[in-house]
């Protein structure tokens, strides 16, 4: 029989997880990833903004529904315009100058450049995750954490079409300076967006954003193994300390509630 037992119901758990989510710092990552047929360098940041509601499921699952994460992704896409547009040239142009003769300008070849397209995408994802309960003793401190299990299925706030529109606008802005691009701008944007496509977007976003949630640890409880319960009151009245020998955590069904129950064995 454990000496100390504490329990929280689902309502309290939701309150606690709301506080925990607000206290988690923003996460970031960077690298490069395939973006449709392209490779794009990226830098991503994500912040858990709302844990939604908590459902305690015996014997060891904390299900968090509607977990919301706000994210921002900055991409640098290298785009070779020549991959999408045909070779174009301005031909030799001749004009006749009265009393002088014909004057001809040289042919001008348009070399489509490779441009860097900065793309900023911001949105949120919602997902439902199952947390397992992990109890560890690390460096003299007991920790009880909820750890996200498995790979969540992300639901984006914006539609994929809206995100592709953002990509298209970024491409259009990045190439506006290119000589003679005007007549081809719509064609180029459509071709690039089509090349990236829905698969390219999800293929990019899922592997970048999923790790921000997958494996996330929510610190439910932390307590030094050795702690003072009564401070010293004088030379002949030393402090009283106890040792937490073991801590266990599980979800129990205690009608009518499901509860997260922490139990501890102690020794003086």
């Amino acid at each position, binding site marked *: 029989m454990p000496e100390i037992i504490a329990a929280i119901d689902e309502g309290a758990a939701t309150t606690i997880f709301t506080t925990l989510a607000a206290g988690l710092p923003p996460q970031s990552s960077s690298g490069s990833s395939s973006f449709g047929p392209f490779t794009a360098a990226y830098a991503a940041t994500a912040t858990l903004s709302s844990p939604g509601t908590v459902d305690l499921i015996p014997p060891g699952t904390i299900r968090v529904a509607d977990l919301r994460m706000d994210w921002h992704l900055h991409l640098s896409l290298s785009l070779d315009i020549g991959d999408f547009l045909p070779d174009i040239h301005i031909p030799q*142009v001749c*004009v006749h100058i009265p009393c002088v003769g014909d*004057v*001809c*300008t*040289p042919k001008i070849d348009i070399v489509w450049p490779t441009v860097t397209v900065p793309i900023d995408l911001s949105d949120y994802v919602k997902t439902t995750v199952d947390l397992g309960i992990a109890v560890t003793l690390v460096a003299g401190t007991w920790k009880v954490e909820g750890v996200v299990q498995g790979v969540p299925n992300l639901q984006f706030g914006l539609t994929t079409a809206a995100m592709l529109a953002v990509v298209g606008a970024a491409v259009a802005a990045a190439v506006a300076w290119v000589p*003679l691009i005007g*007549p081809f701008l719509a064609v180029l944007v459509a071709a690039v967006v089509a090349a990236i496509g829905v698969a390219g977007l999800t293929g990019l976003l899922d592997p970048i954003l999923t790790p921000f949630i997958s494996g996330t640890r929510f610190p439910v409880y932390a307590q030094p193994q050795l702690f003072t319960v009564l401070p010293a009151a004088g030379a002949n009245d030393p402090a009283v300390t106890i040792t937490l020998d073991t801590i266990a955590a599980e979800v129990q069904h205690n009608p009518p509630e499901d509860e997260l129950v922490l139990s501890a064995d102690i020794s003086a």
Partner: protein
Amino acid sequence: MITDQLDSRVLRFTDSYAQRFMRPGTYRYGVVAAGAHPAKAVPVEAVRSLHRGSAAAPFTVQVEEGEAGAMAQTVLTVRREGTRFVVDQPTVRIRTGDMVMWHGTDASWPFAIAGEKEFFGSDRLVNESGFSHAFTAAGTHEWGDAYGSGLRGTVRVRQPRLGSAKDVEAWQSRLSAGTLVTITDAVAEPAEVDLVVGQTVFFVVTRGPGVSVTDVDLLPPTGKGDGDEDDEARVAAAAS
């Protein structure tokens, strides 16, 4: 949004500068970087040093007496080598009345042709010179003279409809049709021109004190050129 700049003082790969040589002689010139600042599009000091006979004028046009007849044209290509500009033919030999045309190949390095003689330089177009520009973006170019002659004009450039390969083909075929604007005594004829993107205008100066063809947005606020106090004297010299 116009991303195309019209400025005869700053030659880009869509531009060319042409000069006829009416008298025999040796005409030395250099190619200098241009376009660092709209109000001082050409590094005037560099041009002046060339005018003083500096060794920075490594290229030559040799003009021999020729018989009157059809004008011949020589096209020279300017390209960048390291920090310098070079011309594909450092020395060309022509006959009087012939025309030499310079154009660049590098979109990133605008330049100017700076000759030792007053009449010979792309920064300021005088008698028997010309400037061409291929318009690469839709929009309206109101242009004027950076040297304050009052010369004005307008080029309206519209976007072609390129919905199909046939449209592209038709558009490309239209690009070989050039438009001539003649500048005489600071008056442009025609003063207004309508084009589609990709078409070229050749501005030819038949007579004038020395002008530029410059987007009005690039003109100095006073409309009096770059503030060079030698401008008046130079205009007078060119006119004489």
